[in-house]
């Protein structure tokens, strides 16, 4: 899978335009995928948000949570809008991720940690530049490359306890690094977990925030396997489908991750080798690991001397936020349940009212009451939709971020681990030097050479690890800022979406009342 991507059209221009003097020499040009120090897209361009969800109503009847549909295996398709392959347009209505090619200057921070498709294990460039933190300059987004991903058509494969769900992952893109412009593959849940495993293995240790996939759920999946076709299993499948889609969006919004060949493979390759070691690495498993690692880090006796409080403060913020979001998530969950109650009660009331209307002698009153029953029925539907909005817009957003914040915490821990490694190397070096001194004194020339060699070796390591540490510091800083921006935008997008849906609901409600009023007045 070593494919050299075609050079970007203006790579020469880009280098010419770079404002900052290249602090490194031609090192970067050696790397195939290193497009002259440019990013594929502007993560945080002035005019582009990394993740732009289409303004089209995410919860139109087609793509929405099938609140009022009869649950059945067939209708799992219906719940996803019965998208036929002719309908590729609609497929991506909710899946647009806008990326733009940055043709302007390089950012202040050099992107030295770039994944290279030519090397299966990532070797990071050592950089002689000083790792000062600078704000990325305003990018002019010129060419926009599109990348739309949708996860649809959940299908059950197999029978009984060996059954599993398969999802269609469709990509539409103008990015040259892909083999074609539109393609789709079938993936199962463990494939997504496998992708996460690979990505976190490679990137987490460098301080990148790797998005977490949704959690495994034994209960949820068992119901689906067993073939229980009730609303809760349709709910579960839809919830998972949406979460997987969001997961992929987040992955490809991350500049570095997008360039990882595993991501490309995931989207493009027809058959993926079955990911087997995903037992421990579901979202929840990973979180457990993070927590264990955190605990280990906390137990480290040598505390870091922080030259500035930024990292400590940020970590504290992150931990607080994670807690808060958990609390909020619980509150939203309660809200969702109450709304479901209201749905149920409204439906039952509507039925009673209909019966009352039928038994009523007075014609006009009878008609009004029957109308009323219909209005209530419609309102029940509104409530139902609203409940799913509450859920999918808010509850899932909060849940996603609780997971993501776990990933952020992990970054910080990785940084400390890196520091620790550097410290350990330094003390090893020190010991080697002591050995050398002893040998010098004891005058044992043959062992001396070995000692000298070891010293050289460890000096190199110390230098390397120090650079690693500085690099990860810069990466973590940058990642945290990127994350914060993305989070703000994400929440903003969601609250707007939520408000839009509220408004639509409300306006429909007004119409119902307006229609009913003359009926009520007509009673005599």
């Amino acid at each position, binding site marked *: 899978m070593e494919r050299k991507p075609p050079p970007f059209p203006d790579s020469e221009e880009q280098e010419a335009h770079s404002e900052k003097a290249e602090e490194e020499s031609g090192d970067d040009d050696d790397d195939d995928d290193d497009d002259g120090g440019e990013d594929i897209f502007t993560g945080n361009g002035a005019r582009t948000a990394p993740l732009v969800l289409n303004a089209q109503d995410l919860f139109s009847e087609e793509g929405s949570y099938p609140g009022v549909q009869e649950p059945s295996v067939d209708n799992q398709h219906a719940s996803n809008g019965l998208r036929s392959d002719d309908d590729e347009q609609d497929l991506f209505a909710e899946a647009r991720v806008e990326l733009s090619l940055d043709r302007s200057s390089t950012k202040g921070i050099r992107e030295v940690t770039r994944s290279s498709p030519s090397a299966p294990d990532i070797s990071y460039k050592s950089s002689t530049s000083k790792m000062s933190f600078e704000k990325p300059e305003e990018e002019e987004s010129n060419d926009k490359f599109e990348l739309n991903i949708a996860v649809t058509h959940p299908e059950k494969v197999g029978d009984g306890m060996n059954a599993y769900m398969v999802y269609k992952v469709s990509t539409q893109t103008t990015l040259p690094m892909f083999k074609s412009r539109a393609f789709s593959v079938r993936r199962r849940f463990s494939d997504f977990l496998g992708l996460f495993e690979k990505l976190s293995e490679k990137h987490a240790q460098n301080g990148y925030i790797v998005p977490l996939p949704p959690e495994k759920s034994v209960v949820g999946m068992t119901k689906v396997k067993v073939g229980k076709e009730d609303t809760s299993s349709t709910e579960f499948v839809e919830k998972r489908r949406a979460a997987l889609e969001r997961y992929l969006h987040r992955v490809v919004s991350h500049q570095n991750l997008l360039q990882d060949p595993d991501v490309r493979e995931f989207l493009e390759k027809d058959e993926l080798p079955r990911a087997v070691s995903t037992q421990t690495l579901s979202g929840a498993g990973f979180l457990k690991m993070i927590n264990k690692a955190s605990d280990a880090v906390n137990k480290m006796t040598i505390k870091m001397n922080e030259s500035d409080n930024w990292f400590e403060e940020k970590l504290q913020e992150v931990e607080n936020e994670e807690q808060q979001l958990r609390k909020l998530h619980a509150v939203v969950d309660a809200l969702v349940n109450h709304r479901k109650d209201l749905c149920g009660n409204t439906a039952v009331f509507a039925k*009673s009212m209909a019966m009352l209307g039928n038994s009523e002698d007075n014609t006009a*009153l009878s008609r009004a009451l029957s109308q009323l029953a219909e209005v209530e029925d419609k309102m029940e539907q509104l409530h139902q939709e609203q409940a799913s909005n509450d859920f999918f817009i808010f509850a899932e957003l909060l849940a996603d971020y609780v997971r993501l914040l776990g990933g952020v915490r992990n970054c910080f821990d990785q940084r400390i681990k890196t520091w620790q490694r550097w410290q350990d190397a330094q003390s090893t070096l020190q010991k080697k030097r002591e050995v050398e001194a002893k040998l010098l004194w004891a005058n044992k020339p043959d062992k001396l050479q070995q000692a000298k060699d070891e010293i050289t070796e460890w000096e190199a390591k110390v230098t390397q690890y120090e650079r690693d540490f500085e690099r990860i510091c810069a990466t973590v800083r940058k990642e945290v800022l990127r994350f914060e921006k993305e989070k703000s935008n994400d929440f*903003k997008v969601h609250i707007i979406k939520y408000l839009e849906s509220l408004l639509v609901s*409300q306006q429909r409600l007004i119409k119902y*009342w307006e229609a009913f009023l003359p009926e*009520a007045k007509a009673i005599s």
Partner: protein
Amino acid sequence: MNRSGKTADTMEGSGLTISASSIKVNEATLDEDTLVFSITSQKLSNGMGVCVCRTYEDFEWLQQSLFAPDEPDLHGVIFPPLPAKLIMSPQSQINNKTLKQLGFLALGDCCRTYCEALELYLQQVALHPILSKNKALETLLTNTESPGKQRAKKGIFNRLSQVMEEKRKESHKDVDDFFQNERDNNSNMTALTKVTTERFLDVVLAEQRLSVASKHLSSSIQLWVNQEDSANAAFSKICLKTSKVFETIKRNFEKTAENNISTLGLGLDLQSRYQEAEKEMLFRRTCKLVELEAANKNTERAKANKKGIMEEVRNVLEKQFDGMSSMARQEVGRFHQSRVALLRTALVSWCEQQLNTATEIAALYSEHLEACQKLPEE
């Protein structure tokens, strides 16, 4: 029986000096354990205002006084239903028992709904062609002394039809199609209305819970933002906006529930109780019918010497029954007219109020949406 009382505020020779539509039960205050209701009304003659304070026992006294067992015709009257007693716990909390007993009347701020129900009751009595002539009403509305002190004669309002041995009389076949129909309809409708009212109550309770939950969410978010000294100002702004949105959502549920209670809730509740009152009346008549038929049988079977007495008894009963039936017929007609009018009023004001609330909330959502869209892009 319409609330606006536009017609027949004053009856010919009614004896009631008060304008029915002016009767208002303003508020209820808690005096130790007892609820005291303040009732105002206006004199027909000079519009002068009268204000009295009454307890529930006074209302009960009125209800008992309206029924005069020695006036057989009166048995054919459908008596305006008096709501059950409202027991207030010291913390003015509504407990489940009260909710079960009173339904919608237990809801609403400061017994507002309950006061309205009492008000309706008084107005219905005042508008009734016969009952309004009863001095007891005048006394209740105008006397300085609380009339409840006079222990009333034991009425026979107490759910005759509930008494087990009487129950079988309920299904006794009628001699008159009109009444048989009416009884059947009433039976059906009473059950349906009761169920519908209960289910509507469940809807309203769910709305109230949603209101509380939304408020909780709004406060939680706001608390968080206030505590956090986050450098991420943009995120804080968004959270604050979100908090405001949920505040509006809470308001929506709150108002919607309020509207539901004060219009349709109250209306359905009244319908339900009135249907029960009609049921009572019809049952009284059926009992009389059973009595009459028994007397007929006795007369036929009686030996010559007793026959005369039996016939007299039978004739008295027959007269009573006929008088009752003709009154009942009138009352039934009146009942249907007014219950339709009542429901119409409830439905129209319900719809109007909900429409107002919906429009107001939509405007608020629009405002929020604009504000959020104006938030700078990061």
